[in-house]
């Protein structure tokens, strides 16, 4: 990726962060921390890598993006709205009665969402099934799946990774949002997943351990993954709440109240 593309994606990621802060702020409360930590990865996937068509969201050979840490639904929604999967006006309805944008991803409600998630650990198994079916059909789709570090405490993650590793699913790109925090505190204090690089290597994955906020590094890692010949894990070392001053400053920003004053001040959007 050249410098100008990297720069433009950095600008896009900032805009999407502001969209997310405004979207969750408009509702008043939400999973801001884990939404902001994955935003750079989503920006690279959706704006420079994925074979997708917002006009034809169900096309068969599209790449799939599964947000297994389903509480980051709003991160997906701001991207999908920006790409034109649905009107941006929908963002104002997040979590409101009758909305198509529930806090956790729902494939039956939201155009562009490839899989429902929210009960943690389940999205990766689904991604593995997609990758296996794509191989069976000689479908060129790449299957991206984003999991959380707290989510990695779920046993199903390791059931799925064992199968993906043993089957050498090289069309599967798993990303771990390693922001080191979960709802109740530090992952390392609660049930540590360290050494996570060794864990995924031992399950047969091609593992890349990168700065999850470095657009160029994310781009390179995806390119490397596509020629690894193995199932892929990209460990995104991230900061929970990245890009929102109030979230980064909070002791724990897994889910927090965001007032109108907070989101306007953070985004500088006083006219929106």
């Amino acid at each position: 990726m050249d410098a100008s593309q990297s720069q433009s994606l950095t600008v896009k990621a900032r805009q999407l962060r502001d969209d997310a802060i405004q979207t969750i702020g408009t509702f008043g409360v939400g999973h801001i921390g884990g939404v902001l930590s994955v935003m750079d990865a989503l920006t690279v996937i959706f704006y420079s890598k994925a074979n997708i068509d917002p006009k034809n969201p169900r096309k068969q050979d599209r790449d799939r993006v599964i947000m297994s840490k389903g509480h980051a639904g709003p991160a997906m929604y701001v991207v999908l709205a920006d790409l034109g999967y649905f009107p941006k006006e929908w963002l104002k309805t997040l979590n409101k009665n009758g909305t198509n944008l529930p806090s956790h991803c729902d494939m039956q409600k939201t155009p562009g969402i490839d899989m429902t998630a929210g009960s943690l650990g389940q999205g990766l198994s689904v991604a593995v099934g997609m990758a296996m079916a794509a191989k069976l059909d000689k479908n060129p789709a790449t299957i991206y799946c984003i999991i959380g570090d707290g989510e990695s405490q779920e046993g199903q993650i390791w059931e799925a990774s064992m199968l993906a590793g043993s089957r050498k699913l090289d069309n599967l790109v798993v990303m771990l949002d390693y922001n080191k925090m979960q709802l109740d505190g530090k992952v390392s204090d609660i049930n540590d997943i360290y050494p996570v690089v060794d864990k995924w290597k031992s399950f047969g994955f091609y593992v890349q351990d990168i700065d999850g906020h470095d657009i160029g590094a994310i781009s390179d890692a995806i390119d490397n993954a596509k020629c690894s010949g193995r199932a892929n894990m990209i460990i995104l070392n991230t900061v929970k709440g990245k890009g929102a001053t109030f979230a980064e400053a909070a002791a724990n920003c897994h889910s927090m109240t965001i007032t109108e004053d907070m989101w306007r001040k953070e985004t500088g959007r006083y006219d929106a």
Partner: protein
Amino acid sequence: MTTDEREIRQTLAQALVSLAERDERIVVLDADLMSCHATKCFKEKFPERFFNVGIAEQNMIGVAAGMATMGKIPFAYSFAPFATRRCYDQIFISVAYSGLNVKIIGSEPGVAAEANGGTHMPFEDMAIMRAIPKMICFEPTDATMMEKALPQIADYPTAVYVRMFRKKAAKIYDESLDFKLGKAITLKDEGKDVTLIASGIMVERALQAAEILAEQNIGARVVNIHTWKPIDAQAVKESAQKSGAIVTCENHNVYGGLGSAVAEVAARECPVPMETVGINDEFGQVGKNAYLSEVYHITTADIVNAAKKAISRK
């Protein structure tokens, strides 16, 4: 009644092979129980469409859901407790709530688990599956029914749970069977005193009970409700109207099972005296089917006694 010449598991596996020849969407998954489900014939015919995912049922259901999103029609097998209870949240969220078309085959229901005992003996699988919105819950009676049901199960656009007795069952139906998923089958319609509503291995016992009752001048209808959900409400109403008493017969806990499903209709639309023959809030244990049936009071004699009790309450 004679024992069927065909095992239900072999019949299903061979029917899946036939279906898969015509429909390339059909895939089969198992969690290290292929040998118990006789699906080797499918693996040999379609090695690339058979996936043994190892002993990881929760993952198997997720993998099946992922395949369903890609347009496949996955049939995911395990023993009934592991195909339902073990991976209940995966079925609930990744399959049902997501609206995905996965077919779940749970084998060795209730006392059929025999020597595998309490850990493998699900008396609650239909109850918990019935509680999942839109889930179709089906228990085949014999090999012929399984064979005729398969294309309908495959064609049904969303998830179906099949509670499958694996081996040779009593042969109840012949090739003339006009099977429709969700439509009960009236096996004996002449009795006016009571209707025995049965499923699975209990159908044979209900028919035997009807004969014994007939010898005592008690007329018993026999209805096979194979699809517990959606239940054939018309068949329940007709049973209440024609005989004025109902006995349900199931190889399952009466809490949440066939008795509950029938009572939900009867209480609302046609209340009549009802008795429920089934497992009464017990865990399983090792033992032969005949022994366990005595222990849990699901024998032919138990049905006869329940019928008399129901009639006495008219």
